[in-house]
């Protein structure tokens, strides 16, 4: 055994993630790993990496016909209550997913029409940018909701250092960055845009997040490093 794997074989996060995915942990250990996935994006990413590594093993699962009664029972359990309670999340889900589609556009260049629906038909205007940068683990998904003039940010990974703020900037061509505001702390947050700024947003421009003193840049221009950036795309 090398000293490297001796070091790795403790109860490090990497090993807990691997054991969680492999499925060997006890009920309690699984419970605690699962709640960490929900609140710790770095740990969640380790788990995803192991899911990815081991996923070819899942080919060995055979397909087994499911009795009809299962879907009927499922419909009863799911849709008698879901129909009453799930009215609010539509726009957020829609934008989130359309943004995902945009992010995956390269991988899914060929659009294969799925019968029964047309995604474009009911789509409000919007822009999406996936923000990331080399040497930084900060990732955000930014959505501009044209209907409400709001920018929504989904925090995907990367912590902000203590006593610092993230500030969001719009960069048009090579002009000086325009501050959109301090990014509030949270998983999904939003910033209201002035009508002036709203006019300025269009596809092809860049959103960037810089690290700033608490309260934002004192100069009106970014003073800290860019921790994530990405180009706006129509969705």
């Amino acid at each position, binding site marked *: *055994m090398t000293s490297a794997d001796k070091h790795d074989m403790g109860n490090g996060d990497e090993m807990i993630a691997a054991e969680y995915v492999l*499925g060997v942990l006890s*009920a309690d250990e699984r419970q605690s790993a699962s709640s960490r996935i929900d609140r710790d994006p770095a740990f969640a990413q380790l788990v995803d990496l192991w899911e990815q*590594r081991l996923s070819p093993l899942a080919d060995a699962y055979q*397909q087994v016909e499911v009795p009809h009664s299962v879907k009927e029972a*499922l419909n009863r359990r799911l849709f008698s209550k879901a129909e009453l309670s799930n009215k609010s999340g539509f726009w957020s889900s829609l934008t989130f997913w359309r943004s995902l*589609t945009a992010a995956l556009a390269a991988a899914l260049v060929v659009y294969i029409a799925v019968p029964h629906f047309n995604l474009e038909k009911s789509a409000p205007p919007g822009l999406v940018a996936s923000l990331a940068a080399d040497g930084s683990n900060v990732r955000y998904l930014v959505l501009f909701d044209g209907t409400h003039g709001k920018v929504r940010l989904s925090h995907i990974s990367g912590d902000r250092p203590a006593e610092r703020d993230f500030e969001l900037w719009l960069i048009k061509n090579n002009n000086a960055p325009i501050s959109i505001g301090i990014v509030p702390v949270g998983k999904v947050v939003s910033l209201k845009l002035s009508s002036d700024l709203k006019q300025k947003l269009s596809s092809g421009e860049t959103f960037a997040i810089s690290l700033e003193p608490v309260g934002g840049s004192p100069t009106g221009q970014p003073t800290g490093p860019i921790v994530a950036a990405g180009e706006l795309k129509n969705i």
Partner: protein
Amino acid sequence: MVESPLAITSSDITKLILRVAMRDRVAFDSLYQQTSAKLFGVCLRVLKNQSEAEDALQEVFIKIWDKADRFAASDLSPISWLVAVARNQAIDRIRERRQPSVDMDSALNVIDPRPDPESLAAANHERRRIQICLEELEKDRAEAVRSAYLDGESYDELANRYGVPLNTMRTWLRRSLLKLRECLER
């Protein structure tokens, strides 16, 4: 009847999950139709009991309906994400249960697995790599990794089956996982 697996591709499943996140029931039905046989296979293999697997499958699809937007935050392929939801559900369930039950009547309904050529081609490389890497492990350890993953066996159960102390099994599997990672990243 379950639709021929030949009909579905990875990008189709992505689009269906996408629409499920938008609360589209037609998409949900279609996703169920396209993937429930595979996910049921997962539940059945882990739980080894028809009615428990049926219950677990319902829970799996309730999670998919509720958490479809979580798929965006992960880098997993859509089918890997779905299988992960099913495996986690089934394994959590079996951990809660004291005695594993054995009822393999259910194995009679196995559908001839015919994955579509596109996803086969894409998956082939990955599959070959993990096979090669598993072959680099000692035979019984590779076996233990496989049955832990596929059957959801715990350290305890594996230690019993192989007749080794719990800590030995833990060391085996941890070392095997690290070797696998090292080999896959080579």
